[in-house]
């Protein structure tokens, strides 16, 4: 189990390593990088005990239409702080999710989702600028071929999520 985990982590590190090496032989897919970011966000986020008991899996939800879905599904069964990731190909019901990844396809139902999310402890990660600007906890963007993110602390607080200061330090902006 341990060696398997090490292998997986090794793969992730290799992935990230490639990210930092612009002259690397293989161009890495932007989606894979974003999926890795999502994984890292989960690592630096703390959920209240009642929604994520010790050893319970983390539900990572994204609609199958999301371009990231394929990359995200690679995260299935990976372990974050002792919690196995379970990838679900739906965004509803949102209350069953721990991490909810959205993109521009989700713009229409965002208003609806936002209402459902009120009082829920969900880490919303948006790959769409308008959703990011409208109450998503973390918004991803690509800036000069580098992936960056912004954090909406008001949204994080209302979701009662505790984001690590280490993560906040890396954010391009924190509101």
């Amino acid at each position, binding site marked *: 189990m341990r060696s398997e985990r090490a292998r997986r982590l090794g793969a992730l590190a*290799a992935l990230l390593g490639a*990210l930092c090496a612009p002259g690397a032989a293989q161009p890495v897919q932007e989606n894979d990088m974003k999926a890795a970011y999502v994984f890292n966000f989960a690592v630096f986020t703390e959920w209240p005990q009642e929604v994520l008991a010790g050893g319970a899996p983390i539900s990572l939800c994204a609609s199958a239409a999301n371009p990231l879905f394929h990359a995200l599904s690679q995260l299935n069964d990976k372990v974050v702080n002792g919690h196995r990731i379970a990838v679900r190909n739906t965004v509803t019901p949102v209350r069953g999710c721990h991490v909810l990844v959205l993109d521009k396809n989700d713009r229409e139902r965002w208003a609806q989702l936002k209402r459902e999310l009120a009082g829920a402890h969900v880490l919303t990660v948006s790959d769409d600028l308008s959703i990011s600007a409208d109450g998503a906890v973390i918004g991803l963007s690509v800036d000069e071929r580098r992936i960056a993110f912004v954090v909406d602390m008001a949204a994080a607080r209302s979701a009662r999520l505790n984001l*690590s200061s280490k993560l906040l330090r890396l954010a391009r902006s924190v509101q």
Partner: protein
Amino acid sequence: MNTKGPRLLGKKMALTNILTAAAALCVASIALIVVQFLALRGALADDLRVQVQIIGNNSSAALMFRDAKAGEETLAGLAVSPSVTAASIFDAAGNTLASYQRNTEPQLAPPSPALVGTGYDYAVDHVDVVEAVHANGQQIGFVRIRATLDQLLSRLAAYAGLTLAVALCSLALAYALVSSMRRAVRRAEAHLHFLAHVDAVTALPNRHEFNERLGFALEKADRAETAVGLLLLDLDNFKVVNDTLGHDAGDALLKLVADRLLQTLRSNDIICRIGGDEFVIIVEPGDDMQELDSVARKILAALASPFAVHGHQLYISASIGVSVYPRDARDARTLTRSADTAMYHAKNRGKNGFEVFQMAMEERAQKRLKIEANLRRALENNELQLHYQPQIDLRSARVVGVEALLRWHCHELGHVSPAEFIPVAEESGIIVALGRWVLQSACRQAAVWRDQGLLDTIEHVAVNMSARQTRDSGLMDDIEAILAETGLPARLLELEITEGVLMENVNANIDLLHRFQGAGIHLSIDDFGTGYSSMSYLKRFPIDQLKIDRSFVHDVPGDGEAIATAIIAMAHSLDLTVVAEGVETAEQLAFLQQAGCDIMQGFYFARPMPVPELTELLRQRRACWHAEALQKA
């Protein structure tokens, strides 16, 4: 002369002590510095480990997101830590994510697995610490920090400098203390040496020093096959100065004598004062007898002029004995004794002169020693006897007195003449006991005769007093006790004191004589004409009788006539009776009878005889000398 060796040794010892202390201090300092270095380095490593842990903790997100900028920002915080020269964040594969370098330090390489295991590494000029970074339960990278030891070493250098300065200061202080202590010890030693070897009165070497120097001189003479001359000098009549002017004057005189000796003698002659009024001069080499003679003469000449002491002009002479090593003795003790013997001969020959030691002197001295040793036992062994010589009144032809004369038959030496043993007894002090015994025996015998009625016609039993006895303060008590014990009337006792003894201490003796006279004791001056009597004293002495010295009697008729006649005339005019002793011939008897002498004593009449013989004589003659003897004249 032999103080240089120990002094050098002392200096060497002190230097060795200081060097030992310096070495110990050096070792201690080095140990301290090493300990200090290890402690400082340990503290530095601990600091770094705290820092590397903080950096490691803060760089986990940067590693996860591969955010080099965030990593570098984290590392930039190290800029405030002055000893940190370089730091890097590596991912798990060893790729550098971010690095920090102070100035132009090279970028750090990824840590080896061994370094990751231990966490730190000490090099000569730097310390490396490595911390693994964990996140999500995984090791995701490392942080390596390198700190230079330059600051530490410069602090250590300052510390070492301070230690060195303190060590040097304490060494200098210790050296100063040791030096001053050594100086004090040396002063004390020098003072002790001075006290032990120098005579305080004259500042000359003392007896102790003399023994050392003489021993040294003899050794030198043995090696060089030369001789050593020893002059022993004794001041004549020094005691008189001490007794009359006090010890201060005596000491002052000794100092002046010492100064004069130093001026007179060559610088290589060694002059020591070995006690009392005795000085010795070691002359090297002493092969030339004439030179020794001339040294002795020079000394006598130098002492001839008067000394000014406390306002008095003192004339002092000396008697010198000369002995030569190895001719006269084979060792220092004997050599000194030989010189002493020669000196005594010089004294006996009339003082103010010198004598060179001869073997015959030694023999005489030996005999003297033997006599003294035997004389001390003579009283206990009953070897002494009194003989009595009758004294005849010329007018009545009767025995009017007897003189008690001491005889000694030693069981070892045989018969010893009083001329030999009396001076020995005088010198050794035995004379006091001897004199008391004579007085006691004579008085007891006289009492016996008196009880037998044999002393009816006899006026006096004469006993001789020695010089030493007259100085004995208990003399008068002794005489009174003896008279009381024997019941002998004081008038029957006659004390004979020689003119010489009487004149030695006139005032005290006049007093003594008055006490004798007061007790009723008859007094007679013995050996009259040989001393230096002053006529005025003669008048003042409460005496009854003069005895013409036998030397004048011997010379009559002839050279002695004038003196004998004069003494008789003078005595008669002073109302004193005159005794002639040593009368041996009819011619002498005739002359003295003619001259008016009152009483005679001598072989012509009777030899000194033991008690039974005299008792018989007294009994037979009924104390009346038969006329034949007188008629012969």
